[in-house]
């Protein structure tokens, strides 16, 4: 392997690693606030990519009807919970889907890439809070394992829906740029720079969100001490919805980014999600910088593994997780009787 090949592999690994990083961040936010290991986040990634692809082809994606349907149920449910809840319900689950639906109807036929992408984000982002509302909130106090198993079942629901909405074939999300950038020996595609740029922007944006906004601080409080947060009046249901909303936004964004580089099928998200999840675990499910390092490591390792022994690259990535987890678990000492 010469230097050129190594650099090319590194660049490839960093681009995919950036996507894993986005998913890892989403997983960490959701886990720290709700203890849900949100594996099906990867399926929302596929939803994001395929929704954008469908919009770009001038059609109305099935995910829009899913949003409208689920929002309608949530709206009706919120009407029975006092006027403040009802008001909030009407705004979130009445006005918002209406606006999005209208925008899709008006704008989708024009097939403008940037618009398709924004609409896809607007459609897929509310899926997170809806999933929280209907799947996890009813058993929010169950054990981490029960929530994990529910998350697995949810993954199958999402790929079932994905198959119905998008069919089994792969599709590409619209690209924002076709440019190629020459960096000396390396010829880097513009889209992979867009991926990196978005990733960095999002990380900085989240830093600002958690550091400087009231919602961000609430989430941090809810994450660091669930019981304490509840005692000081932080609404666990609302912070859960916010966490899931952030995760689904991040997933949808990752979807439109990677979907432009690689055509994705309805079931492609799970594998990507699992690798994001490997990265998140490397962060011990708590530390963001560790997760970032983990994500890049997973991306680069996958790239190198694909080069050396391509048939075994999945084995390499997932086997890597085992020593890391063991190390983490040794470091955290005896985890017994923490149930």
């Amino acid at each position, binding site marked *: 392997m010469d230097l050129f090949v190594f650099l090319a592999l590194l660049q490839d690994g960093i681009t995919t690693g950036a996507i894993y990083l986005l998913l890892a961040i989403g997983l960490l936010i959701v886990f720290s606030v709700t203890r849900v290991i949100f594996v099906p986040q990867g399926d929302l990634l596929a939803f994001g990519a395929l929704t954008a692809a469908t919009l770009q082809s001038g059609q109305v994606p099935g995910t829009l009807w899913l949003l409208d349907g689920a929002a309608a149920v949530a709206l009706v449910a919120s009407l029975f919970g006092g006027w403040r809840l009802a008001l909030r319900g009407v705004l979130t689950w009445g006005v918002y889907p209406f606006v999005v639906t209208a925008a899709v109807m008006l704008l989708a036929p024009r097939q403008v890439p940037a618009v398709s992408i924004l609409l896809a984000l607007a459609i897929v982002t509310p899926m997170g809070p809806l999933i929280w509302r209907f*799947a996890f909130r009813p058993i929010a106090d169950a054990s981490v*394992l029960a929530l994990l198993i529910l998350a697995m*079942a949810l993954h199958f629901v999402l790929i079932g829906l994905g198959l119905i909405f998008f069919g089994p074939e792969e599709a590409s999300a619209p690209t924002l740029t076709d440019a190629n950038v020459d960096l000396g020996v390396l010829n880097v595609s513009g889209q992979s720079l867009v991926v990196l740029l978005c990733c960095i922007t999002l990380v900085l944006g989240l830093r600002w969100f958690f550091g400087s906004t009231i919602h961000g601080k609430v989430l941090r409080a809810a994450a660091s001490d669930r019981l304490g947060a509840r005692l000081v009046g932080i609404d666990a249901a609302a912070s859960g919805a916010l966490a899931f909303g952030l995760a689904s936004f991040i997933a949808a964004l990752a979807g439109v980014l990677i979907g432009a580089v690689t055509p994705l099928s309805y079931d492609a998200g799970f594998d990507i999600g699992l690798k994001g999840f490997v990265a998140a675990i490397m962060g011990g499910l708590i530390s963001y910088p560790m997760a970032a390092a983990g994500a890049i490591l997973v991306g680069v390792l996958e790239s190198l593994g694909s080069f050396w022994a391509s048939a075994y690259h999945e084995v390499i990535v997932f086997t890597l997780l085992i020593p890391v987890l063991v190390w983490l678990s040794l470091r955290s000492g005896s985890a017994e009787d923490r149930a």
Partner: protein
Amino acid sequence: MTPVRVLSLCGTIAGVVLIPAALPEFYVTLFGYVGLATLVALGLVLLTGISGQTSFGQASFVGIAAYATTLLTKLWGAPPIAGLIVGLVVTGTTAWLLGLVTARLSGHFLALVSVAWGISFFSLFGTLPLLHGFNGIGDIPPLRLGPLSAENLRVNLGVIWAVVAIVLAMSASLLDSRMGRAIRTLNGARLVGDSVGIDTARLSRSVFVLAALYAGVAGFLFAHFQRFISPTPFNLGASIDYLFMVIIGGAASLWGAPLGAALVVVLRDQFNDWIPRITGRVGDFELLVFSIVVILLLQRAPDGLLPLLTHLKRRRPPPGGLAIDVPAEIPPAPVLAPAVAPGAELLALESISRNFGGLAANRDVSFAVHAREIVALIGPNGAGKTTLFNVVCGVLSPSGGHMRLFGTPVEHLPSRRIAALGVARTFQHVKLLPNRSVLENIALGTHLSGRAGLWRAMLRLDRAEEARLLGEARAQAERVGFGRVLEMPAGDLPLGQQRVVEIARALCLRPHLLLLDEPAAGLRLAEKQLLAALLRQLRAEGMGVLLVEHDMDFVMELADRVVVMDFGQKIAEGPPGLVQSDPAVLEAYLGGLA
């Protein structure tokens, strides 16, 4: 044998013989799959439901055994029995190696690692050239039972369910044994397990291997039943399905396994059949509907369906309430502990310190406990009593100083080794298996007096020993007044009585030294009097007792000597009367007021 057991045995035999004969061909296949899934699910009940470890990788073990037997019988022409043996050896070894790596993992970390190996093994099955790739291997020879060739699906179904019945019976025997009780402590009560001398790390690895072996048996049967294998049935999705079965059926009971397996297999089949008929579309809605049903079941019945079906039969408290009988006179110990010379030194602490990071919870604490002596450790909140108690029990190791038990240095022994030396303890926050009977909880304490391991328990070769252990537990129970409530779930007792269960459990270790962490907390007056009488009796029999206690009246009336701690240090030691008037003690307790 109880009538229920006789009935279920007859039912099983009838089932194994009659069901295959009566079922139409297709349902033979379907129930074959139910049987195979039941085997895997039984392992998962032991692993997840009983011992609290979750695995998303059981399908890999099915696959390892299936591929092993296929390679041997189809490609190398060995008889199936060789396939079974090699398959199980390979599966067991793989699980054991994985277990070595994952032994320290618990909770969701183990679940996550299992996802990783689930994917890796699936990938390997498809990639290793030896295993013929993703398109699979066909024409695997069928099983032969003398003249009966299991080429016939009905014979196969009989074989599968006979194996299921055997494995179910063996699992039931296991749970109804010394090792079974030990396994139950793995789920959230490992400290209890350690405190009665169970090697919990090794045991959880054994259960892990056992569950893998069940999956291996299923894999062996699967290969010779379907006679075609490819990597797909051993992927992560299949492992998730097995977990769904266990969770839906009810992870806490063995019967949850067949129930869940039947439900999942039959539901999937029926959805595959009816959804295309109703919607006119194929392939779209089957998975969606199935997984929505799974989610609803998880939400509505988080403990599975079996408890819903059987909850009506739950044992009611005996008439006359829960009051325990306070014996007029406490009977002597049923089995006398080997005598220790009266007044011999049992426990000696010399300058024990324990730090947490920069914080010193104990500094230079020294005292001793002798045979025929009750020593009380008291002090205000945060004085470091519990830390010291945990150091003595072996839960924490001291940062400095020396500790001797019966003359042997024990600074770095784990709790189970300390328990084996003849030291028993109770817990400040009661730790019992709330769903198990009082008798079973007490019998946990007899763990070290038995020898029978997993296999002897599964084959019911441990019955004589088991009877002896239960007899001992029963005697200890009666001694503390639990004769009438032995069969009650321990969690149904009032808190005070749960404490007494813990003491009875501790006494089953036949300790020379008894360590009690706030034994009187939550007890009513009569119960306290009983407890005090019991402790005096134990002292009279030669035992040494160290107790941490807040209840001053109780301590002052009972203890021979009191050790007072404050800010991690010993500030006073002596007979109750003297300590009570010690100025340092008054200062510690009354602070600035004194």
